[in-house]
Structures are given as structure tokens and as C-alpha cells.
């Protein structure tokens, strides 16, 4: 019955990437959705806008996962659903009905500061104009309204939903001419952990405050992001948001990614020095982190680790970091290869040519549990699911490490995971992942 799960060695992947491959799984296969698939989802990201509500306009089924996650995680009360039926599909009258729905919602709750109206795949196909709808509702109620799209059907295009939603939440920010010596962080769903040295370093260089949408407790706080003079993009998902803000709000940006390897972390800091025209003294943090790595390496021993893609990191960069810390990484689970991954893939292929790379989505993964892959630790719920005997460190998007603190917090989380009595299933379902 079983068939071998589809995989490439990292060396094969290197060759494939050189010839232009961007995904392990091309359009030629059906897609498997393991229980570990998913992330924050469009609704949860959309509701990062403080004091906002969201009206989700779709056939009944589409909003189910987002709504249940909302009940689990506590944002359901800011979320409203308008169901689209057959007649709406034909006549497009749901756009008019959405206006009525906003009226009824506003009559039943205290006035929100912002409204997001979310459309789905079907409205992509019907070419419904939600941007116009948002404008009309905004004019009617004098509340800022923006449109966003949960349209996985556009996943392979230039505007996939996971990128457009980050743009949409930053579209509420008005343009401000007078800039401050402050920066915004883009790309992550959480603000950088308070424990990160990043804040100290920035304050020392005269850059303050450091703003992030998730740290804004009011809509006015969000608007103040328009006063920052620079945007730091720390994860690729914020690219469209950064481009939009550069153009519409006159805030330039650079990409200085979250990384876990010491050299990569140092490189992000160097980039910030260049781009912001500041000087950052990071040497002490580098040394301290090097010591921490040695310390945790001794505690954990030479464990083997599987790396997934459903994590707060680029899987290839993380695998490289873990190898450089002195651990083994026999398996990686990921589908996507970004341009920025190339260098890490090459590095890995040179040193560990036999690393196996699986894709979560290939149909053969339905039988994967028969493989009974053995590792000590899995990073990411997906890796943890497929390597079922392993302990799992989620490395979730819910909190955001950055700088040298990223390496420290990763090692702490790995250590905690090795002693974690909770089941993978229990932890994973509690996380409210949405595909």
C-alpha cells in the first residue's frame, strides 16, 4: 500500500535550485494538508489592527477555521461573518449586503476605530471591487475601512494573501511629513521580545522608539508608525507592506532578517549600521552568545534535530545555525525555497550532502508516519508531527526573537522542549493554526 515519501537530498535540491526551482512541489501534484499545516491565518493577522473589527464576507465554510481559532485565542468578538449564498454569487449583491451588515454591526457594538472587510477566492474570480466598497463604507461612517483578501487561489501569484494581509494592516497608517528618529519593525506578527539586546543597541545609537503593530495598544499608536523614518523588514512576509510604506508613506526600508546563526545575526546588525547610518557595538553580545551555545550544547548533548517550515525562521538558515552550534540535522520539512535560502542550501550541501528534504504537501506524506523517522528533537509542529517520537519545540510566530537573543531563546526553548511532558497533539491544537 505504502509508497516512499517524496524527498530530495540537499545536494539534489541545490542542483534543482540552480536550475530555477522555487518549490519542491511543482503544480503537478495534489496537496496533502497534515494536521500541523497552517499559521496565524489572515483573520488573526488582520485583527492586529488595534481597536478594529473585521467583517468576513464569504460562503459559510470559508471562515470556519479562522472563527474557531478566534474562539480559542480570544478574538472572535471582533469578528463578524456575512455568508454569501448562491444568489449573491450570481448577482454580486453581497457587496450591497456588506454595507447593511456594517450598519447592523455598528448599531450593536461600541464604535470601532477601524474596519477591515475581508473577501475570499470567489470574489477574486468574480472580480468584485472590495477596495471601492471599503471606500464607500468609510465615507458612510467616517471610520477608516480597508479591504483584505483571504484568497489562497492567488497563492502562487505576485500578491499571495500572506503578503497582502501584512500590507493591508499597514494601509491604515496615514502619511506624516515630519519624521522622528524612530523605526518600525515589519514582517513579524509579534513585536521583538523585550529581552532582546536590540532595544538597548538602538537606544544607544539614538534610535527610539522601536515600533511594531502588535505593540500598539490603540489605533492612534498604529498611526504614529507613520512618523518613523525607517522600516526594518525582519521576515520576508512583510515585503509588500514595506514596499507600500516606502512608496505611500515615504519610509524607506531594508531587509535585516531574523537569523539564528551567529554570523548571520552579525550580518543583520552590520546592514542596519549601514542603512541607518549608526554604529552598534555588538561584540560583547556575540561573545556572550557564543558561550551560551557551548553551555547549552553540553546540556543537550549531540542531539539530532528535524527542522520544519512551520516555524519562526527560514528552515535552511535554522538548519545551518543548528549545525554550526554542533547539533545534527538529518531532515528538513519544507516546500518553499526563497532566493535568500540559496546561500544556506549551498552551505548545507557542502557539509552534509545527505540531509533529506521532504515537502509537507506531497500526497505521499499521507503515509509518512509509517516511516517512523527517529530524531531527538523536532523544531516546528510539522517536523514534530512527522517525526512522532521526538520532542517538539514549536518556535512559534507568537513571540518574536531578534538579534543575538534569537540564538539564546532558541536554545532555551530546545532545552525546555526536551523536558516537556505535554503531548505534541495537545500543544499543536492549542496553537490555533489556520491553513
Amino acid at each position: 500500500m505504502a509508497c516512499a515519501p517524496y524527498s530530495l537530498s540537499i545536494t539534489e535540491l541545490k542542483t534543482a535550485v540552480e536550475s530555477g526551482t522555487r518549490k519542491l512541489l511543482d503544480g503537478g501534484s495534489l496537496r496533502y494538508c497534515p494536521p500541523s499545516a497552517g499559521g496565524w491565518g489572515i483573520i488573526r493577522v488582520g485583527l492586529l489592527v488595534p481597536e478594529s473589527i473585521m467583517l468576513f464576507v464569504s460562503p459559510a465554510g470559508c471562515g470556519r477555521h479562522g472563527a474557531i481559532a478566534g474562539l480559542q485565542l480570544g478574538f472572535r468578538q471582533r469578528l463578524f461573518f456575512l455568508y454569501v449564498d448562491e444568489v449573491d454569487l450570481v448577482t454580486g449583491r453581497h457587496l450591497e449586503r456588506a454595507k447593511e451588515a456594517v450598519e447592523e454591526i455598528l448599531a450593536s457594538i461600541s464604535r470601532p476605530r477601524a474596519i477591515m472587510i475581508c473577501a475570499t477566492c470567489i470574489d477574486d474570480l468574480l472580480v468584485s471591487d472590495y477596495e471601492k466598497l471599503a471606500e464607500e463604507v468609510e465615507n458612510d461612517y467616517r471610520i477608516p475601512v480597508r479591504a483584505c483578501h483571504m484568497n489562497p487561489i492567488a497563492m502562487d501569484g505576485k500578491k499571495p494573501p500572506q503578503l497582502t494581509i501584512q500590507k493591508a494592516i499597514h494601509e491604515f497608517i496615514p502619511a506624516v511629513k515630519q519624521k522622528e528618529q524612530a523605526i518600525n519593525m515589519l514582517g513579524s506578527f509579534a513585536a521583538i521580545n523585550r529581552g532582546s539586546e536590540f532595544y538597548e543597541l538602538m537606544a544607544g545609537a539614538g534610535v527610539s522608539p522601536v515600533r511594531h503593530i502588535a505593540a500598539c495598544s490603540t489605533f492612534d499608536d498604529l498611526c504614529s508608525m507613520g512618523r518613523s523614518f525607517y522600516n526594518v523588514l525582519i521576515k520576508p512576509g512583510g515585503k509588500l507592506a514595506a514596499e507600500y510604506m516606502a512608496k505611500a508613506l515615504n519610509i524607506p526600508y531594508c531587509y535585516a532578517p531574523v537569523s539564528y546563526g551567529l554570523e548571520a545575526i552579525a550580518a543583520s546588525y552590520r546592514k542596519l549600521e549601514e542603512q541607518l547610518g549608526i554604529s552598534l557595538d555588538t561584540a560583547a553580545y556575540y561573545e556572550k552568545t557564543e558561550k551560551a551555545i557551548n553551555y547549552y550544547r553540553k546540556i543537550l548533548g549531540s542531539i539530532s534535530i528535524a527542522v520544519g517550515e512551520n516555524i519562526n525562521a527560514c528552515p535552511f538558515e535554522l538548519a545551518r545555525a543548528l549545525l554550526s552550534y554542533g547539533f545534527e540535522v538529518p531532515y528538513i520539512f519544507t516546500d518553499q525555497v526563497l532566493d535568500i535560502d540559496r546561500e544556506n542550501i549551498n552551505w548545507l550541501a557542502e557539509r552534509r550532502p545527505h540531509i533529506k528534504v521532504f515537502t509537507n504537501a506531497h500526497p505521499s506524506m499521507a503515509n509518512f508516519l509509517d516511516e517512523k523517522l527517529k530524531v531527538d528533537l523536532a523544531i516546528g509542529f510539522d517536523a514534530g508531527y512527522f517525526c512522532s517520537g521526538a520532542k517538539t519545540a514549536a518556535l512559534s510566530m507568537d513571540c518574536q526573537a531578534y538579534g543575538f537573543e534569537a540564538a539564546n531563546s532558541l536554545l532555551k526553548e530546545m532545552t525546555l522542549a526536551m523536558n516537556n511532558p505535554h503531548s505534541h497533539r495537545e500543544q499543536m491544537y492549542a496553537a490555533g493554526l489556520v491553513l
Partner: protein
Amino acid sequence: MRRIAIYGKGGIGKSTITSTLSAALSTMGYRVMQVGCDPKADSTITLTAGKTLTPIMDYLKEHGKCDSLEEITVQGFNGIVCVETGGPTPGIGCAGRGIITSFNVLDELGAYQVFNPDFVFYDVLGDVVCGGFALPLRQGYADEVIIVTSGEPMALFAAGNIKKALDNFAERDYAQLRGLILNLRNIEREEEIVNDFAERMGVPVFGIIPRDKNIQLYESRQQTVIEGDPALNISRSIMKLAEQIIDFGEAS
């Protein structure tokens, strides 16, 4: 029951010919049902005998769902059952999906069992433009397709496209192309051009409809020529065409 979809380039005279054919068959004693599949909802206008017909989509827009065939059908001239799918306001929604939704309503209400027609005509807008407009071709709806064309290049081009669509659907057991109806535009060598074309398609030309001002005359009175004056030449041509279609069905 024979179920025939009439396709052809927009403006070629599909609705006029379909309605006149329906009228002709009804005078021969057949029970006929005509389903207009066009958001303009004007296919059956010459058959409804002045009664108001609510297009299915209009009814659904108003009431959400439909529980009775009486709301969306009219029995017009000689008891012909008239139906219009209707569609969205131009520029929004999805007209193709409107046809699907309307056909589902007819199915759910058992229209074909209730009226039990000998002939069902689906008068379909223009070319096969998307999934919805191909719906009449699917299994369970039309079994036969007739294309209305003139000798003009654009009309033949459209006819060729419809044939291509049907060939693409070969593996799906969809309706089959039975033949052409030539609606004369009086261009040079028109019959020869269309006969050549039909030969290449491997189908017969069922009939030739000459240009006749009586068609417009009776249309302005919301009638077909068959109802207006069965003795006219044009009426007799259409009766002949109807006989051809009956014969073809019996032969196959």
C-alpha cells in the same frame, strides 16, 4: 423528450429562430419548452402571449429561494412553456453561474417531469464563453446542439469555436453537434459557403431561413410569424425546418 441547445454568434437571430421553431412544433401538436439562457432574458418574448415572465435569477434576488414552478414559468402561445434564466446586473456577479443556479432550480422543482415536453430548446447566449454557458451541453441537459449561422466570416468563426468546444468535451459525453441552420444575410454565394463549412464539420444544414420583413413585423407585435400568419412563405420555411429536425431525430 428531445433536448436541443441552440448556439451561435450574438445577434445572428438565435432567439427569433428558436421561438419560431418552438411555435412551429407546437402547432404540429408537440409539447415544447423553451429556456432562454441569457442575462438579457428576452429569448421567449414573442411566445409569452403578453404574460409577464419573471426570470429565475430575478425571482431568487427577490425571494432568496423558489418553491414553485408557477413563479418562474409561463405557458405561452399554444402552451409552450417559457423560462428565462436571467442574470446579474451587468458588470457584477457572474452570468455563467446564473445559468447553473437556474438549472439547479428547474431540476429541484422537477420541471421536466411536470411539463413532460417533447422538445426542450435551450437558447444560449453567444459563444460558449465559460463553464456556465456550457452547462446546457452537460449530461442531463441538451443531447443535441444546433448552431445558427450566416455566411458571414464572423458567424462562421463563432460556429467553428462552438464546434471546437464540443470536440474538447468529447471525453465528457456532452451533447453532440447535429447540424446548422442558415439564417440568410444575403451575402454573395452564401449557401455555397455555408454548405462547404457544414461539410467540413461533418454535419447537415437543416434549413435555410430567408430574410423576410414579416419576422420584424410580427416581432413588433410580440408574436412569431407562425402565430401571426402561418400561410406566409417564411412560416412555411420554418415549418419545413421543424419537420427536418423531427425527421432527423427519428432517423437517428
